């Protein structure tokens, strides 16, 4: 009995091995001109033990330094339209892509499975609607599946798009698909990058290091020396989140604060609240909370309230529920952002490319942090609790109803 099954396994294996030889057509492009793999991780010798653990293998010193510099740099472009601003641009010529309208834009979206992407996606659709010269906009949602996004990109390149916008689900795994699309259509990548420089432009806010550093520096500033810090992270292994933590680690290692715990919350509010409650119980008092994303910040704040303790300095993100809590409970807080207005930029960039205008090779968008001073401007009553304040969508048609708010 076993021998038969083994025979079939062998047959299957043979099929696997021989088929590629017989293949005669390939949808996969020639090897991309230059793979731009992540630079070697800079070994950072941890000074004293601050409870922050090993530095992430995602940490790249050069990128870190670049982002730290960008935080201080002055963006160029209209200051009331941060999504059109850019920091330190190195412009590239796009004349080769110039063509007359009307245009058919295509978009391969990684997913719309969280509020950040929801807000961004609505913003992008509204941006598209602003431009009469875009007569057709085809978007495919990969539902968080790398494999589907690879197929989606392949499908879109065959649909006669004039430009292809890609928001990759993961960096490494989408690289072959994007480099496959580049020769056929101008590609614009945003949010996460890919490991090839074939896209015409790559749009991103300053980045994760800037986010993590902003929050950590705030805590270093506000929490008295020796204070106990609890760091809450969503998941390990997600590049954009790893960079946030690794920058925070650098800041904490240099400080005189003690990080008593680094916990993963899966982005689950109940789990966040439980973790924070456990720490309050165990240490009696926590002097500061650092978070790599704001989605569960309110739950963390509530854990202190429920324990009958004052809320220590904390960071969140630009979601309305946190901003409201901040304002109502008069927190000592900061909200670094990863602005959703970046979803407007790819459309603008695509049109620039198609009109032959220059665009930055890497389009760094400013990445403001919400502080006590400007909190009021970002607090928008009537918007849903999980709405992101930095959507840059207030001037778009359909606001606020389209984003779930009431005027």
């Amino acid at each position: 009995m076993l021998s038969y099954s083994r025979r079939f396994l062998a047959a299957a294996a043979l099929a696997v091995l021989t088929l590629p030889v017989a293949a005669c057509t390939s949808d996969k492009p020639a090897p991309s001109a230059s793979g731009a793999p992540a630079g070697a991780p800079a070994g950072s010798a941890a000074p004293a033990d601050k409870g922050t653990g090993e530095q992430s293998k995602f940490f790249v010193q050069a990128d870190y330094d670049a982002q730290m510099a960008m935080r201080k740099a002055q963006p160029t472009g209209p200051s009331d339209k941060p999504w059109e601003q850019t920091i330190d641009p190195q412009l590239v010529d796009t004349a080769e892509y110039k063509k007359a309208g009307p245009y058919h834009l295509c978009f391969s979206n990684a997913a719309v499975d969280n509020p950040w992407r929801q807000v961004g996606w609505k913003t992008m659709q509204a941006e598209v609607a602003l431009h009469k010269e875009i007569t057709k906009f085809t978007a495919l949602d990969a539902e968080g599946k790398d494999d589907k996004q690879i197929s989606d990109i392949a499908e879109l390149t065959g649909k006669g798009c004039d430009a292809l916008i890609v928001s990759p689900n993961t960096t490494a795994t989408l690289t072959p698909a994007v480099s496959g699309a580049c020769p056929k259509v101008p590609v614009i990548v945003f949010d996460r990058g890919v490991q090839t420089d074939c896209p015409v432009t790559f749009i991103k806010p300053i980045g994760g290091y800037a986010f993590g550093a902003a929050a950590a520096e705030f805590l270093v500033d506000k929490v008295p020396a020796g204070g106990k810090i609890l760091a809450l992270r969503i998941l390990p292994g997600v590049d954009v989140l790893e960079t946030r933590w690794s920058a925070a680690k650098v800041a904490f290692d240099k400080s005189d604060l003690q990080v008593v715990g680094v916990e993963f919350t899966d982005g689950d509010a109940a789990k966040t609240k439980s973790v924070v409650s456990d720490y309050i119980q165990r240490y009696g008092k926590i002097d500061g909370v650092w978070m790599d994303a704001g989605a569960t910040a309110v739950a963390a704040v509530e854990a202190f309230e429920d324990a009958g303790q004052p809320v220590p300095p904390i960071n969140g993100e630009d979601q309305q529920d946190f901003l409201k809590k901040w304002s109502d409970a008069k927190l000592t807080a900061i909200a670094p952002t990863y602005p959703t207005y970046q979803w407007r930029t790819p459309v603008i960039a695509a049109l620039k490319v198609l009109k032959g205008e220059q665009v930055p090779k890497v389009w760094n968008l400013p990445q403001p942090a919400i502080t006590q001073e400007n909190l009021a401007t970002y607090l928008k009553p009537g918007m849903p609790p999980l709405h992101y304040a930095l959507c840059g969508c207030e001037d778009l048609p359909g606001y606020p109803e389209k984003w779930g708010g009431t005027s």
Partner: protein
Amino acid sequence: MRRALPIFVVLAGLLVAIAVVNPYFLEPPAFLAFVKRAAPLVILAAGQYFVIVSGEFDLSVGSLVTAEVVIAARLIDGSAEATWPVLALMIAFGLIVGLVNGVVTTLLRVPSFITTLGMLLILSGAVFLWTGGSPRGALSEQFRQLGRGSLGPVPWSVLILAVVAAAAVWATRARFGHTLVAAGDNDRAAALSGVRVARVRTVAFMISGLSAAVAAILLGGFAGVSAQVGKGLEFQAITAVVLGGVALGGGRGSVAAAMAGAFTLEALFTLLNLYGISGALEPAVQGVIIIAAVALGAVRFPRARAAAAS
């Protein structure tokens, strides 16, 4: 009861192990906090028990919890007056979802694994279609109190859990409980003895839906609106019930043991956390323990085929 004993021993062992690391654990405030945290899962396990003992599965409770919280947030929208009507509506919605699961399973004869898998997809899709992708609105303070606040030193959720547990035990001892177990053991024999099999099974699904609604009230109250509040709860609830020695396939096990299974699972999470088992290894340890617990149960109580000589 014989069959249910091991889980109580395991639970007691785990609680002692926690107390060794954290001596405060068995003092009232810390212990009540533990019970409060466990309450939603225990309630879900109680609901799931009724479905499993009747011979079915309910995979839809996780997405039902999410849907309930999202619906509540949108309808309440922070208004105190809306709280109580919306609470009533949530309960009704849970019952209706259970009713649909039950009717599709019993009258249309779709295996419940598939019925409730379909319901899982439908609920998670439909609720976000309705809210446009992510939760809207906000829960009111009154609503939040049920999951967050307490009556004197005792959290509301602990009180609610006590009521649910009492009701669940009562239901299994009542006629309904006996006929449900009968339907789970041998539905043809039950039907030929006058049991309305389709009806009791449907009621079991409705109880499961109701428990999901109550769990949603507690979870939403505890931690606020979230799009993933119910994620994975269906598997946890089924695991808890099975851990309690309730046989998948129906006909055997007690609701008290199922609830003890949920407490055990929660205690296990707490213990792993306390012993600093890294976040990464946690699922692995959990997986091994669940298999081991069920395997031990199976070894001790072999699924003897009808041994009667003929």
